[in-house]
């Protein structure tokens, strides 16, 4: 069984919600990312989502855009991200890792080569923001051959028809974008999230994680009431880009994640 499914099932048995945390590889420098990943896990992360920087991150708000730019300034690439995962796996063989990025770096490497290298490095899934199911079939096939999951997004504007289509290809979990907007936006509407989640559950057995706009314990707890878990990204990338020392950044990450973890675990009581 894939680490993602294993982790989520274990959480279900404990009646706990999943906490997925996102940072960009190489942000603000390549040296910090490995330590940051371990810090995120120690503070209560269940699944790590590692951003692969891209020159044109169309779906990101300003905070994560700057994270991509900082990472690219140091030459961070898809290849160096796979090397990072390999290094992480030397000491952590259990925490699932999802890579999140854009289609072009994966296309450039080649779908087959990517799937093989990612599986060997210890990656568990791939979320390609600009590769919807219509365009994802070839990549999906390569990922399946290596037992990697294709993670897909659904949005408030997704029709039932599209929910169905995504459900056919999706593996691991479904990532529900909680609002019309870019990452880090602030107009989260819990009741509309709740409504859409019930539509998704009609077509897919997969757990649904909610992201975009979740920045603290309060919003995580509110969304966690209805979702199987939450994704926190911009709030962490903001800390990465704060300009503080490595020690301060790692401490900031740990505190943030621990507070969200505590709030989220209120849901299981």
């Amino acid at each position, binding site marked *: 069984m894939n680490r993602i499914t294993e982790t989520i099932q274990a959480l279900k048995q404990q009646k706990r919600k999943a906490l997925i945390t996102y940072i960009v590889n190489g942000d603000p420098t390549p040296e910090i990312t490995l330590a940051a990943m371990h810090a995120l896990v120690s503070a209560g992360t269940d699944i790590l989502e590692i951003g692969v920087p*891209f*020159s*044109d*991150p*169309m*779906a*990101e*708000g*300003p905070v994560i*855009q*700057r994270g991509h*730019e900082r990472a*690219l300034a140091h030459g961070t*690439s*898809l*290849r160096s991200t796979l090397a990072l995962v390999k290094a992480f796996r030397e000491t952590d063989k259990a925490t699932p890792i999802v890579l999140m990025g*854009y*289609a*072009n*770096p*994966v*296309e*450039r*490497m080649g779908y087959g080569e990517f799937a093989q290298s990612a599986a060997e490095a210890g990656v568990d899934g791939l979320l390609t*923001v*600009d*590769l*919807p199911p*219509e*365009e994802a079939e070839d990549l999906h096939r390569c990922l399946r051959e290596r037992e990697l999951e294709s993670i*897909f*997004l*659904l*949005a*408030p*504007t*997704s*029709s039932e028809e*599209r929910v169905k289509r*995504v459900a056919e290809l999706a593996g691991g979990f479904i990532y529900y*974008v909680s609002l*019309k*907007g*870019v990452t880090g*936006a602030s107009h989260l509407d819990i009741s509309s999230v709740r409504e859409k989640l019930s539509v998704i559950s009609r077509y897919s057995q997969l757990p649904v994680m909610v992201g975009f706009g979740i920045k603290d314990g309060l919003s995580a707890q509110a969304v966690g009431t209805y979702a199987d878990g939450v994704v926190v990204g911009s709030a962490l990338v903001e800390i990465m880009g704060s300009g503080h020392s490595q020690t301060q950044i790692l401490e900031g990450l740990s505190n943030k994640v621990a507070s969200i973890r505590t709030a989220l675990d209120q849901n299981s009581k």
Partner: protein
Amino acid sequence: MNDTKVDFTNMPDERGHFGQFGGRFVSETLFYALDELQSMYNRLKKDPAFQAEIDHDLTHYVGRPSPLYLAERWTEKTGGARLFLKREDLNHTGAHKVNNTIGQALLAKYSGKKRVIAETGAGQHGVATATVAARLGLECVVYMGSEDVKRQSLNVYRMKLLGATVIPVESGSKTLKDAMNEAMRDWVTNVDDTFYIIGTAAGPHPYPQLVRDFQCIIGREARSQCLEQTGRLPDALVACVGGGSNAIGLFHPFLDDASVAMYGVEAGGLGLDTGQHAAPLSAGIPGVLHGNRTYLMEDENGQIIDTHSVSAGLDYPGVGPEHSWLKDLGRVNYVAITDDDAMAAFRSLTKVEGIMPALESAHAVAYAEKLAAKMDRDDIVIVNLSGRGDKDILTVAKLDGIEV
């Protein structure tokens, strides 16, 4: 070229593909809006009332048809084929861009959306969008890379006078591609009340198709004007290619005319061998950017790289997907012209014909001159003069070391 006959008129396919190119590579939130746009467009393009409204605007507001002009002195000087200019520079706002914004703004009107957004590089598409928005009373927001805002201050002010809000984009390379990213982000956020007017025949399906359809007026007119004036079809067509909307507009109505050769001219910048250019069809590889699969300029890690051209309107790392398809089929030849050659053509056409081409169009002029020189005196070449050069006077003056 392929032996099997290709049906050029029936593309893209239902999912927006031109062969392996095109498609819809956008985040999930936009699918709904793209589906809605597509079904509205499919309905309206068969609606005679909608077509009549466009025709009316093109005639009375834009000033079409634009002339097809035999440039006799230029032909004489070149000493080869007869050179005709399709005078898109004479359109209202001074370029072909308005053909498309007229069409898309009408779509916006029919959709009931009161706010339009656009991306712009040199500012021509921004001006053309702000113009039609003013006329229809729509709110207009234009995204423009902060580097371009500095370089094109005249057009920025023009847009402001027209009532548009110009938002400088500070991310990435601060140029056209980043403006397009930012416009997409705006659209994702305001998708319920906002219509995105894309300026070139690229982006997610159905944009490459609808921009092409609106620009095909260029080729349809040129075809019938050429038949009328010369009694036959041209031997070659030449147009510059950035995103490629003026070129596809000229080429498309001729694609089934096998005797007509076509040349798309990319920005060769400082030379293809220097890497300092904007010629993805000549020197790039297929990849995914801005919602479509197409030829791109990128590095070995799949990151999009900075481009260079003296002409801001060609300074873009991608190209419309239909051009990528036509390149691979071999139906259109894609070539590159350097900054220096384009500048020389700018000066030469201005002096010989009293027509000052936009620096973008000057690339087509430069290539046409080389091409025509090798052809017979009976041959006919049509060059798309996609825009006028007034907007470039400050750039040219600066190169000459003159302060205006």
